[in-house]
C-alpha cells in the first residue's frame, strides 16, 4: 500500500505487526465488501441458475434435477415468446428515443444562457425521481376517462370525446406508452452522459480542427463522436441493462396487459416465480436475460480497458 511503510514498522504486538503489513491490511479492508457481494449476489446468482434446472416451487421445495425441461416448457409457451419479443421492442424503442432526445438536449444545454441551471434541474427530474412514483403520475395522465392528454387533444379539436384513445387499454398504444415513459425516464441520463463526454473533449482539439477547416458536421462526427464514444457506450449499456431487466414501469402502468401485450421478461419472471410461486419456471424465464447481459458486460469491459491503455 505504502512503500515506505516497512521501514516505519515498529516491533510491537503481533496485531500491530499485522496491521502494518500493506498486503494483509489491504485484504482485510476489501474483504467485507467482497464477502457481502459474494454471499448476496454471487451465491443467489448460482442458486437462480440451479432453480432453472430443478423442479422447485414454493409449494413443493424439491431440488430434483429436471435438466432443460423448464426451458423447453417456457420456450413452447406462446405467451413467453411474446414476452421475449416485447422485451426487445421495449428496450430498443425506449433507448433510441432516449438517445435522440438526449443528444439534442445536450446540445441545447451546452450553450450558456440565463437560467441554465434551473432548466437543467427541471430536465433532470425524470431521472432523479423514483421511477415508481413518476410512473403513477403517467398512469393518471393516461387515465381512460380523465386523461389530460386526451383533454388537450379534444380541446385542440384533433379528436372527439367519442374516439379518444384508451392509452393503456389498446395493445399497441399500451406498448407505445411503456416505451415513451421509459424513454422519458432515461433521456436526462442520456443528456448528462453526452454532456460529460462533450465537455471532456479538449477545446484546443476542436479549435485546431476549426483552423484546419473542419465545419460543424465534420467536427461533430469525425472528432467529437469518436472521442466521446467510450463514455456514451458505458452510459448506453447502463440504459440497456436497466431497461432490459426492469419490471416497475410495466407492472405499474399496464400490469403486462392488455392480454400480455406489454409483458416483459422481468415482469413475467415475477408473475411466474413470485406471484404464482413456480420458482423453477420463473428462474428459467429470468435467465433469458443472461445472454444479452453477458454481451453487454463484455462490450463494457472492452470499453473500459481500451480507455486505460
Amino acid at each position, binding site marked *: 500500500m505504502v512503500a515506505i511503510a516497512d521501514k516505519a514498522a515498529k516491533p510491537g504486538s503481533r496485531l500491530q505487526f499485522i496491521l502494518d503489513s500493506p498486503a494483509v491490511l489491504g485484504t482485510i479492508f476489501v474483504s467485507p465488501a467482497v464477502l*457481502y457481494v459474494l454471499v448476496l449476489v454471487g451465491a443467489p446468482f448460482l442458486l437462480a441458475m440451479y*432453480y432453472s434446472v430443478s423442479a422447485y416451487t414454493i409449494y413443493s421445495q424439491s431440488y430434483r434435477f429436471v435438466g432443460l425441461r423448464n426451458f423447453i416448457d417456457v420456450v413452447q409457451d406462446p405467451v413467453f415468446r411474446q414476452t421475449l419479443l416485447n422485451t426487445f421492442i421495449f428496450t430498443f424503442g425506449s433507448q433510441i428515443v432516449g438517445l435522440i432526445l438526449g443528444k439534442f438536449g445536450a446540445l*441545447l444545454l451546452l450553450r450558456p444562457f440565463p437560467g441554465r441551471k434551473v432548466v437543467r434541474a427541471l430536465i433532470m427530474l425524470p431521472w432523479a425521481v423514483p421511477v415508481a412514483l413518476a410512473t403513477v403520475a403517467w398512469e*393518471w395522465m393516461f387515465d381512460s376517462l380523465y386523461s389530460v392528454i386526451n383533454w388537450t387533444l379534444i380541446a385542440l379539436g384533433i379528436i372527439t370525446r367519442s374516439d379518444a384513445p384508451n392509452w393503456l387499454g389498446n395493445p399497441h398504444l399500451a406498448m407505445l406508452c411503456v416505451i415513451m415513459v421509459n424513454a422519458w425516464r432515461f433521456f436526462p441520463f442520456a443528456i448528462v452522459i453526452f454532456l460529460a463526454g462533450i465537455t471532456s473533449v479538449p477545446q484546443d482539439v476542436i479549435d485546431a480542427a476549426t483552423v484546419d477547416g473542419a465545419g460543424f458536421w465534420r467536427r461533430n462526427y469525425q472528432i467529437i463522436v469518436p472521442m466521446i464514444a467510450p463514455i456514451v457506450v458505458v452510459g448506453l449499456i447502463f440504459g440497456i441493462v436497466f431497461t432490459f431487466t426492469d419490471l416497475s414501469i410495466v407492472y405499474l402502468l399496464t400490469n403486462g396487459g392488455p392480454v400480455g401485450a406489454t409483458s416483459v421478461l422481468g415482469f413475467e419472471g415475477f408473475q411466474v416465480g413470485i406471484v404464482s410461486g413456480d420458482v423453477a419456471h420463473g428462474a428459467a424465464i429470468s435467465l433469458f436475460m*443472461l445472454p444479452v447481459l453477458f454481451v453487454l458486460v463484455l462490450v463494457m469491459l472492452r470499453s473500459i480497458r481500451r480507455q486505460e491503455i
Partner: protein
Amino acid sequence: MPRPLAAAIREVSFYSAVLFFVVIAAFPFYWMVITAFKTNSDLYTLTNIPFWFNEAPTLAHIKYLFTQTLFARWLLNSLIIGVCVVAITLVTALPAGYSLARMTGRSGETLGIGIFMTYLVPPTLLFLPLSRVISMLGLQDSMWSLVLVYPTFTIPFCTWLLMGFFKAVPREIEEAAVVDGCSILGAFIKMVLPVSVPAILTVVIFTFTLTLQEFVYALTFISSSAQKTITLGVATDLVRGDIYFWGELMAGALIAAIPVAIAYNLFLDRFIAGITGGAVK
C-alpha cells in the same frame, strides 16, 4: 435576410427547443402538484380546464394521507432503511474503495471492475433466490429484509465511486503520517478520511436516494402495508375500491419525490463522474 432578424429567429428557436424539453421533462411533476391540491369535484369534472384550479385549492388530500393511511409510517420505514443501508455501505465500501485504489498492479483494477460489474446483475434475476434466502432467515414480509438486500447494489456502486476518489488523494499524505510513526490504519483514519468528506457525503446521499428509488425488491419481499417503503406504499397501497384516489396518490408521490429530486440535482455531477469513472480519466 437582415442579420438581426436571423439572430432573433435563431434565439427564438433555441428557447422554444429549451421550453419543449422542460415541458416534456417537468409536466408530469406539474401534474402531480396540481392534482395533489385540487378538490375532487374539480378533478373529476370533464368540462373543467385541467391545467389550473377551477375551485379553491385544498389540503384535504395531504390531510387524508397523514390521518387515514400509513403514509407517515412508510416515511419512517424508508428513513430507517436508508440510515441502516448507508451505515452498512460506508463501513464496507470506504475501506474497500481505499484498498482497491492503493493496490498496485492489475489485481486492484480487476477486483474493482469485478465488484462494479455486480452492480449490473439485475434484481429481476436475483429476487427468486433472495426471497428464499430471506424466508430462511425469517425476514419475509419485514422491512429488515431490505436492509439486508439493498447493500448488494449500493456497495458495488459506492466502492467504485470511492475507489476513483481515493486514487486522486496523493499518497504523500499517508506516507508522511507513516514516517511520523503512524500505522497505515491510523493514517487512513486520521489523514485520508478527513480529506474525503465530500466523497463520503456523496456516497451517503446516493445510497439514500438509491434506497428510496428501489422498487423491485420492495415489491417482492414486502406485502403487509405497515412494512412498506414510501415508494412501494404510495405506488401500491393508496388505490382504494373506487377510482377517486388520484388526489391522495399524487400528493403522496409528490412528498416522496421532492427530497430525492433535490438531493439528486445537487450531487448529479459527482454521480456522473462515478458512473463513467472507468471511461473518463
